[in-house]
């Protein structure tokens, strides 16, 4: 479990203080994956550097399993750093060492005997799917493979927390997937708590249980991904959901539906059956005007813009709400058909 408490960090830029982090608090429960998102300049990388214990915050605490690590120095600081495995942004492998040599680095710092070191390195390279690349130098690995070696290195000293700073920013989508798979494995097989700092929503959709949104150094939203998507006011929620394509909807509205609404459905059952069932049960004509389906982790989630026609349209909507669909009436459209 890692807790960030009231973290503050101010830089001075051309004589004016800039608050990179302004009272940031986060909590990542044991064995869960938290995504920290935000635009560039929101304070993401400062937060990552503070958590990696590379930068000292002006105030606040970073606790791993209860112990504050911020004020540590010397050998205690170095030991604390081994509790937090870091996958840094960009290429960070020693180019003059093999994949195995790179993974061994934290074990050397921890003074693990050579024999144990070898078996641990083999274990980790196996975990990231690179057992056959152990004696290959980084320049002969692909970007995704290098990043997986970096993950293996971060996990070598058995940290309880894994921090990944933009682990996929330099990778193409296919390669991104392999790196995310490895992060997910780290969580499920080793039980580490994962903190991913990213600007890529695909990363959050794919592996995050929780998400925190940074804006100008402040956490503006923080919660479970599945809760936030069904919260109508959540901006990150709507960013994670499929677009409902407003423009074309407006045109379709003039086709004359009695009710137009946005429906968010969470979970396999809801996504699969709720709409057709509502349609047949209440005898309403239901057309999908926009939106689509996505996955948040293993959970299918859909957001549709639907038009309902028929006398019992309202009852159909109510029935869906009772079954945990999150329904939001569309704003009044051009010709005022929608409620």
């Amino acid at each position: 479990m890692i807790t960030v408490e009231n973290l503050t960090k101010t830089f001075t830029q051309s004589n004016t203080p800039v608050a990179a982090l302004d009272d940031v608090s986060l909590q990542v429960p044991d064995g869960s994956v938290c995504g920290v998102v935000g635009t560039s300049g929101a304070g993401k990388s400062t937060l990552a550097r503070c958590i990696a214990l590379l930068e000292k915050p002006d105030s606040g605490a970073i606790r791993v399993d209860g112990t504050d690590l911020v004020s540590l120095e010397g050998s205690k600081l170095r030991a604390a750093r081994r509790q937090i495995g870091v996958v840094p942004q960009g290429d960070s492998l020693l180019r003059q060492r093999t994949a195995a040599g790179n993974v061994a680095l934290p074990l050397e710092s921890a003074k693990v005997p050579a024999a144990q070191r070898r078996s641990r390195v083999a274990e980790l390279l196996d975990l990231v799917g690179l057992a056959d690349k152990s004696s290959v130098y980084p320049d002969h690995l692909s970007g995704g493979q290098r990043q997986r070696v970096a993950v293996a290195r971060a996990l070598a000293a058995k940290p309880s927390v894994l921090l990944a700073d933009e682990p996929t920013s330099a990778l193409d989508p296919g390669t991104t997937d392999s790196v995310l798979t490895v992060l997910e494995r780290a969580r499920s097989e080793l039980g580490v708590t994962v903190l991913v700092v990213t600007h890529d929503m695909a990363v959050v959709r794919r592996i995050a249980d929780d998400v925190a949104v940074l804006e100008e150094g402040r956490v503006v939203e923080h919660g479970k991904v599945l809760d936030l998507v069904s919260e109508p006011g959540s901006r990150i929620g709507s960013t994670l959901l499929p677009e409902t394509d407003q423009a074309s909807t407006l045109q379709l509205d003039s086709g004359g539906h009695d009710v137009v609404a946005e429906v968010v459905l969470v979970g396999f059952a809801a996504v699969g059956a709720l709409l057709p069932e509502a349609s047949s049960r209440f005898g309403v004509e239901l057309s999908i005007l926009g939106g689509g389906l996505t996955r948040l982790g293993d959970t299918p989630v859909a957001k549709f813009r639907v038009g309902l026609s028929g006398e019992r349209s309202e009852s159909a909507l109510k029935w869906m709400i009772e079954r945990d669909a999150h329904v939001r009436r569309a704003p009044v459209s051009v010709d005022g058909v929608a409620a």
Partner: protein
Amino acid sequence: MSDVTPWSEVLELVRPATVETLYMVLMSTLVGVVGGLPLGVWLHMTSPVGLTPKPLLHRVLGAIVDVTRSIPFVVLLVVVGSLTRLLMGQAFGSSAAIVPLAIAAVPFFARLTSNALREVDSAIVEAAVTTGAGKFRIVWTVLLSEARAALVGAVGVTMLALIGYAAMAGAIAGGGLGATAILDGYNAYDDRVLYVSVVLLGVLAWGMQLVTDWVTKLVDRRRAATNV
């Protein structure tokens, strides 16, 4: 006087001279590396981009290194004469010449070292810091190890510079191909000795560069190195 020295005699002259030059260059390179490497590491570590920035110390170290480097070698040779006598018991001969050569080599190699270390990607260094590596480990397994190709190159550059200096030292303090070229060649109006000495100096320099390049390739595991 105008008689050309026979080849056999030329050979007699330049053979020991070549050995002396090699001896001076290799010994002073050795001292230069042994003294310059830690000084260069220190210079880098205290620099603003180093692991333990100490601006004042860095500036003092930098000044010492650069001022020593900027003293013309001929002047250095004369200035350290008494030190040479103290250390070597004499101010002449190729062993004596090692003292000023080494004094020139240390700051030279220190500067090259600190430049080489600066080229190591800071992301790599920080990544190592996050693994809990201590300062010593970072210097050894990250900085020096990652910069190995540049450092071998720096040894080569130092040796080449020292060949030139050694010729100068030889001309004044005696010993080596430089002395042969000037004393037995130029001053004796013996063009054959002069040119043979010069060519040999060139061959030595070229040979050292070849060896340096070969070792560089041998130690460098980056792609560029293996593809050449």
